[in-house]
Structures are given as structure tokens and as C-alpha cells.
């Protein structure tokens, strides 16, 4: 069922790591030094939004509260993303030790892994691993004999809702509510789980932290680009010879990546999952990084045989179903976008209508409450712009579209 650990190699995340070493090192450091090291690394959130991890931690560390929480966001729901599955199954030590480091830095006693229900087959192996860590005193009271450093991790299963990957929706879900995003501010760093200061980090972010503590922020920064430090796990799927998870440095071009994964006759690449953008072949020199084509890791490849209108419809169906329904731009907007895609398919549209749909996209981007509605028009707009052949009809012999 689940493939057993393959030997993976990589520069940062998949580099050699001795289990327990991050915790051994962190207890010899002061909290300030830990925060400093993470800031030095310039690590940014790996879930897709790219918020600086150190800033999140410092805000929580500075908050005065009786309890603090560290939450690992393992609600990996973005279409085409499966890197967290690989990390949790093959490198749980990195993720959990990253949580222990975070707990040490911010002063949290409780850790929660919010695991999507689709991954419930991992619960047993993860719990076994946690029990092993407890036995080795890497978790529990007085971790590795460090007086006053108590921390424990619990696994919490979601129940099938993409929107719960949004951090405030995730917290609502943990509290036994509908997974509807909250208004922000206040941010979770001040008012998080049960009202206490809470750090919510992506699985891959936490795994990176374990390496940063052992090898240093400066070492981490030597990988990747100036603004996108370290490496990234890319979940590659679609039309290529070797789909899977690849660790590659930030700043690699789409063209280079396609070569590595054995993709041929590629027409388009969806970068960042359904909420990302669809990039046509003419732009394959673009670089995968926070400053250019940003992604939480999802890379979906389409070859020349694919109709991009079909892709657009698939994404919009996804958003229509997964919208939590709380705010109108997202609830109604995604429904109308899907309707528009169907009209495009039936060639039942006017350009005036399309214009109004584009305006609706703009409204959704600015008026939706959370990232779901703010990003769902991306795929629609980028496919409309870059793949007019599939939408309006084919080019005439002069290479001009029949309708423009």
C-alpha cells in the first residue's frame, strides 16, 4: 500500500541527519540563540504563503501567556502536493524534532499535528514514532534531562476539508468548530488555539528547522537564492516520466525541472497547485522561487495533448466544493467561475460577459476573507490569458486567433 522508504538524496532536507541531534543541540543553546539562528537562515513558510518563520516565532516567544502551542500543519490538501506525505512517512524525526525546537524557542508545552483525514493511514506509524521519542526522552517532561523543558506532541485528525489548511480555519477545526477561517488580526501568534499564542508551521518548514539548528542558519542560506533560501521539495505529477518528490534548490528554472523529471512536449505547467498559476511553454525560463514563480511545492505538468479548458474546469469544481461558504465572494464567485468555464466550453459567451467575469475575479482576489477565494481566480485568469487556443478556437494560418 504505502511504499517503504526509498533512499533519497538532497542538499538540505534529504541530507544526512542523525535522529535526535537537533534536540541535543538546542538544549545547549539559549532561546534567543535559537531564534537568532532561524532568523539568520531566512527560512520562509513552506506551505505556500512564505511568511518568515523567525518572525512568527519571535512574536509568539514575546507573547505573555500561561500556555502556548505549536501546531504542525499537515493538512496537505493543495492539488498536486504530496511532499508532506513523504516527510511524515520517511523523515518523521525531522518534523517532530523541528516541533521540539520550536517549542523550546517560543516556550510551548503542547504540540499538535493536524493531520488530514486522507492521511489517517499514517497515524499508527507516527504514534509509534512519538512513543519511541518519549522513551528516548526526546519528548515528555525534562527533555534530555533539561530541567523545565517539557513538551509533548499529539496527533489530531481532520475530517476532509481543504480550507482547514488555512491556519485560522485549522485552529477552528481543532477547537471542534466548522473549519471557517477567522478574521485577522488577531493573528494566531497572539490569539490562537483556545485563545493562546500559537505558532502554526508547515511540515516542511519544521523539517527544515531541524537541519538549521544542527548545521546553522548560514549553511542553510548558502542554498537557494538571496530571497528564497534553502531548498524546496517539489511534488511533481502529471505528464512526465518520473513523477515524485524532488528536493531542488530554490531558483531552479521550470525548464531545468522538466528535464530532471523527464517531461516531454510540455504545453503548460501549473505551479502552486489549483491556487497557483498556469505557466505556458514560452515562460519556462521563469524561476521557481518566492520572488518569481512561488509554490508550496505542487508542480503539475500538462503535455500538448491536454485541453487547458478541461484543466480549468477541474480546478474550479475543486474550489466550488472546498469553499467553506462563509464569505460571499468565494462562495458565489467560484460557482460563477465554474459556470463561466462551462459556457466557454459550449462557446456560449460574449466578450462583454468575459469582461465581467474578469472583474469578478478581481473582486474575489481583494474581497475574499482567506487565501482560498483570493487565489482561486488565478488558474482561471492564467489559463484564459495563456491558452486562448483552447478556449476561443484554433489559430488561423497566420497564427492569429479566429476570435480576438
Amino acid at each position, binding site marked *: *500500500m*504505502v511504499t517503504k522508504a526509498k533512499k533519497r538524496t538532497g542538499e538540505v532536507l534529504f541530507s544526512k541527519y542523525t535522529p535526535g541531534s537537533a534536540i541535543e543541540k538546542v538544549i545547549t543553546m539559549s532561546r534567543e540563540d535559537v531564534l537568532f539562528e532561524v532568523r539568520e537562515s531566512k527560512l520562509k513558510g513552506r506551505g505556500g504563503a512564505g511568511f518568515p518563520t523567525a518572525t512568527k516565532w519571535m512574536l509568539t516567544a514575546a507573547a505573555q501567556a500561561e500556555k502556548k502551542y505549536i501546531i504542525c500543519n499537515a493538512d*496537505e*490538501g*493543495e*492539488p*498536486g*502536493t*504530496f511532499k*508532506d*506525505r513523504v516527510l511524515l512517512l520517511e523523515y518523521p524525526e525531522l518534523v517532530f524534532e523541528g516541533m521540539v525546537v520550536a517549542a523550546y524557542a517560543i516556550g510551548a508545552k503542547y504540540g499538535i499535528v493536524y493531520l*488530514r*483525514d*486522507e*492521511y*489517517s*493511514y499514517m497515524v499508527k506509524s507516527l504514534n509509534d514514532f512519538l512513543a519511541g521519542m518519549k522513551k528516548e526522552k526526546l519528548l515528555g517532561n525534562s527533555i534530555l534531562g533539561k530541567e523545565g523543558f517539557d513538551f509533548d506532541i499529539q496527533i*489530531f*485528525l*481532520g*475530517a*476532509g*476539508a*481543504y480550507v482547514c489548511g488555512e491556519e485560522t480555519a485549522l485552529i477552528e*477545526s*481543532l*477547537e*471542534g*468548530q*466548522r*473549519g*471557517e477561517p477567522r478574521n485577522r488580526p488577531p493573528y494566531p501568534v497572539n490569539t490562537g488555539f*483556545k485563545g493562546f499564542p500559537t505558532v502554526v508551521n508547515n511540515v516542511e518548514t519544521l523539517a527544515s528547522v531541524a537541519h538549521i539548528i544542527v548545521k546553522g542558519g548560514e549553511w542553510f542560506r548558502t542554498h537557494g537564492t538571496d530571497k528564497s533560501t534553502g531548498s524546496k521539495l517539489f*511534488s*511533481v*505529477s*502529471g*505528464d512526465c516520466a518520473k*513523477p*515524485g*518528490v524532488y528536493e531542488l534548490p530554490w531558483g531552479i528554472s521550470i525548464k531545468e525541472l522538466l528535464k530532471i523529471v523527464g517531461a516531454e512536449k510540455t504545453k503548460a505547467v*501549473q505551479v502552486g497547485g*489549483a491556487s497557483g498559476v498556469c505557466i505556458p511553454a514560452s515562460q519556462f525560463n521563469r524561476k521557481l522561487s518566492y520572488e518569481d514563480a512561488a509554490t508550496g511545492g505542487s508542480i*503539475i505538468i*500538462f503535455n500538448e495533448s*491536454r485541453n487547458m479548458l478541461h*484543466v480549468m474546469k*477541474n*480546478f474550479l*469544481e*475543486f474550489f466550488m*466544493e*472546498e469553499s*467553506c461558504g462563509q464569505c460571499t465572494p468565494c462562495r458565489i464567485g467560484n460557482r460563477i467561475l465554474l459556470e463561466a468555464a462551462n459556457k466557454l466550453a459550449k462557446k456560449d459567451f460574449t466578450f462583454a460577459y468575459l469582461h465581467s467575469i474578469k472583474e469578478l475575479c478581481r473582486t474575489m482576489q481583494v474581497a475574499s476573507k482567506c487565501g482560498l477565494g483570493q487565489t482561486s481566480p488565478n488558474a482561471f485568469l492564467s489559463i484564459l490569458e495563456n491558452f486562448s487556443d483552447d478556449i476561443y478556437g484554433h489559430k488561423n494560418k497566420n497564427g492569429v486567433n479566429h476570435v480576438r
Partner: protein
Amino acid sequence: MMEVKETTHLYEEIEALAEFYGRDRSALLIILKEVQKKYHCISDYAQQEIARVLNIHPVEVYSVVSFYSFIYPEQTGRHIVRLCKTISCDLANKTYVEEAITRELGIKFGETTSDLRITLEHTNCLGYCDNGPAMLIDDKVYGNLTPEKAVQLLEELE
């Protein structure tokens, strides 16, 4: 996970679950799942009893039950089969698997077989895109499906 003692009364079981997981609202999802595991649905009565032990209004429980796609207020089959319909599995020809399953079971997606053996559903991305088409049977994931393999997996279900 906790072993619920065999009793004839649902309310006793819910009481025991609340005792084990705590009477805090954050225990709601896990209690719902435990009840569902045994009864394959969260009936109105179960919702009321859960609301009682957690000291919240039954509508609060219903609001949560209706929100999550993996929690069912209506009776489902003993097994829930969820075929991924998101783009990567779609590119990997999940349509053929879809057609084979519906032919074999004689039900459409979203329906349950009359012997309450299988509930068939579509689901969004399972995070198994590198092995598409993928399908979740209860809590196990299966990838690289062919129409034949998928049907065979369903036949093995009791």
C-alpha cells in the same frame, strides 16, 4: 483510539467516549468519528446525545457534521470508497476506473449499494498524485489503479 465497550445503548457509548476524550468541545471531531466508525453515520439521536455530553446545542453538532466531507449524517455503507477526481488523477485516466466501478457495483458516485456494503464517492486530492489514479478505501490508500485492479479491490471488501 479507544475501544468502546460493547453496550446496547448508544448514549452509554457516547458517555464513555466523552469520559475518555474529555467533555471539551475540541473532542467533538474525534467523538463523531468514533461513533461513525461503529454505526457508519451520525444519526439525529447521536447528534443530540453528543451535544448533551459536551454541553452544547445540538445544532452546534449539526453545524460541524454538515461541514466536513468525511462525516456523514446519513447512513453510509460499511466501507467508504473514495476515488480521487482532482487533476493529476484525472490526467492519469481516472475516468476509466470510474466507469469500471460504476458498472461493477451498479450504483453511481454518491450512492450506497442496497446491501449497505459500499458507499461510493468522489473526493478531492488524496496527496497520492505521483501514483494516480488513486483511491481511498476506508483509511487505506491505493494507487496506480487500473479498472481491473480497482474492481478487484472492491470485490475483496466484506
